[in-house]
């Protein structure tokens, strides 16, 4: 099976990745870096407000998703990645959510035998749960 090894001195190996392209990408990386730093500070600052758990979770998750998307999209080049990879990842994310959601849904829907220590039923109004 003959395989095309490619010339060892070819600079334009990756489609659209000539030196000028790289410079543009580097600018993006720096911008994303700054954004990530700001968002890190934001997420820590917001946590100082001790919001109620549901709101705190929502906000923290939202910020994390934005940060994660920046890393995935730009550092990991997903914004310009081939469809095949994106399809595999989409499938994975779907199953990820299944794994996250179904066990807890199954428990919320059934009777959850409370631990011996608990005097009250499982879902008391506690500040942090």
């Amino acid at each position, binding site marked *: *099976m*003959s*395989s*095309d*090894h*490619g*010339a*060892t001195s070819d600079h334009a190996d990756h489609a659209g990745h000539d030196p000028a392209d790289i410079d543009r990408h580097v600018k993006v990386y720096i911008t994303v870096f700054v954004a990530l730093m700001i968002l890190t500070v934001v997420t820590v600052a917001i946590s100082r407000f001790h919001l109620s758990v549901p709101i705190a979770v929502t906000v923290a998750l939202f910020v994390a998703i934005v940060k994660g998307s920046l890393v995935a999209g730009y550092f990991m080049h997903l914004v310009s990645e081939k469809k*095949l990879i994106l399809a595999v990842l989409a*499938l*994975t994310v779907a*199953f990820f959510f*299944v*794994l996250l959601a*179904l*066990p807890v*849904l*199954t*428990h919320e*829907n*059934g*009777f*959850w*035998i409370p*631990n*011996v*220590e608990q005097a009250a039923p499982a879902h008391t109004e506690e500040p942090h749960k």
Partner: protein
Amino acid sequence: MSHPTGVDHSKPHAAHEVHHEELGFWRKYVFSTDHKVIGIQYAVTGMLFLLFGFGLMMIMRWQLAYPGVPLPLIGGLFGDARMPGGTMLPEFYNELGAMHGTIMVFLGVVPLAVGGFGNFVLPLQIGAPDMAFPKINMLSYWSLVLGGLTMLGSFFVPGGAAQSGWTSYAPLSVIAGTGQTWWLVGMIFLITSSLLGALNFLTTTIQLRAKGLTFMRFPFFVWSQFVTSFLLLLAFPPLEAAGVMQLMDRVAGTSFFMPSGLVVSGQVLTNAGGGNAVLWQHLFWFLAHPEVYVLILPAFGIVAEIIANNTRKPLWGYRAMVYSLVFLGFMSFIVWAHHMFMTGMGTAMAAFFQTTTMIISIPSVVILTSLLLSLWGGSIRFNTPMLFATAFLPMFGIGGLTGLPLGLNISDIPLHDTYYVIAHFHYVVAPGTIFGLMAGIYYWYPKATGRRMNETLGKIHFAGTLVCMNVVFMPMFIVGLAGVSRRLFDAGSGYDFAQGTMHWNVVSSWGAWIMGLFQIPFIFNFFYSIWNGEKVGANPWEATTIEWAAPSPPPHGNFATEPQAYRGPYEYSVPGAAKDFTPQHEAS
């Protein structure tokens, strides 16, 4: 593949050029990166473990047939800790049961079906020179070996091997002896092996297929390995995480799966508590349900190849079969809690899981029906592979149909954890998958060795095994419907309601022991034919798929010239063609 410094890359070189120096014995036969060697290593390892796992069951079957009676001849071999006076202790029964399941599933069927057949056949069938990542391939095999050695070693630790079922439910598994820790470590090796193998198979199938070999021209076997690999890749990691958490519970005193206030032998446990034993079940079954499709899909693939070849007809409904396979793979991730109907879930979630479970039976039925219809009007050749492949169909049919009452919440209530369940899943795996694997061994043996296995011995092996499989497992439906629980070390002899069905245990046991005898012609045949089997050329079965273009056995690199696919995989009996088969790789 790395090149030594200074090699001139400007000229591509042809495949048949001898490119590398001769490898020593160890690099060629032991630490090989050649997919064929690795495939055979996997296959032989898998077969040895299948035999060992079957051996464990043969011992158990004495206790089940004659509870409390000393095991004749070999009873003394197991020592007083396990069989004082030759009588089986309950702990030993549990040890045998847990390890039988673990070994058959993870060390027997998967290594043979996926590691063995997948590795050997897949690159050949897609016209590739090897897997995409040969070194990772070798690593995945040796990871399996490490896992297997760990599992075998666990028999020798104080307290013996794991004895909390192959399902290792918490909290029993958390408080169990050292053997369970070894089980968990062993599983981590096995899971790593499967994960590495899966990503290799997927990359190879996507990237290294021959020119002209589009996805819809894949042999069905390739599709089955492809979907299987996705299942392994995405379903195994949660079990790995769960294994780590159970290890933490056992070794670091955490309480992931340990509820508060647990009392063991009169002592209240001092761990933090607050854990969730059902969490283990969720994580385990998240893997273990797709795992059962990992067990069956390769067999579907093998049976499909053999049926097309021995009916001299294309497969009926290839497209429907492929779509069903993909749909089945996807659905397999959202049915798992049908194994947990008795854990106290509410009606909404029970309804969800039984609905998805009913839906997933549809693609199975499509595939089975298509295979059955593929027989219609064929010029059937009843050689040994075809006998196993054809018998697979009704056997898997029984297994599949008997799963339906288990998948429905209400009917599962009286059947859960009874012998009915054992009968159901053994029908799909034993005269189901294992028949598919036997068929595959007889079918591809000539490609791997250049010789045929003996047909007479094969037919004896087939007939005996088919009858015995049914003798062993059919009565278990009756026993289960009578309400006898599984995993009872005395087969329920202490219960009044079980008395009416106890005699069936004797029947099953004799079926199992006789089935053991019928494997002897197979084992003999397998080794004898390596040196004395009828020699064959590249394509003794007159098949159409690309693996038959390579010599038998294929050399390193597989093909003299890079194959190309010109048509679909099952162009048999094409009107107007010179032969009754038109190979996929032959230019017209």
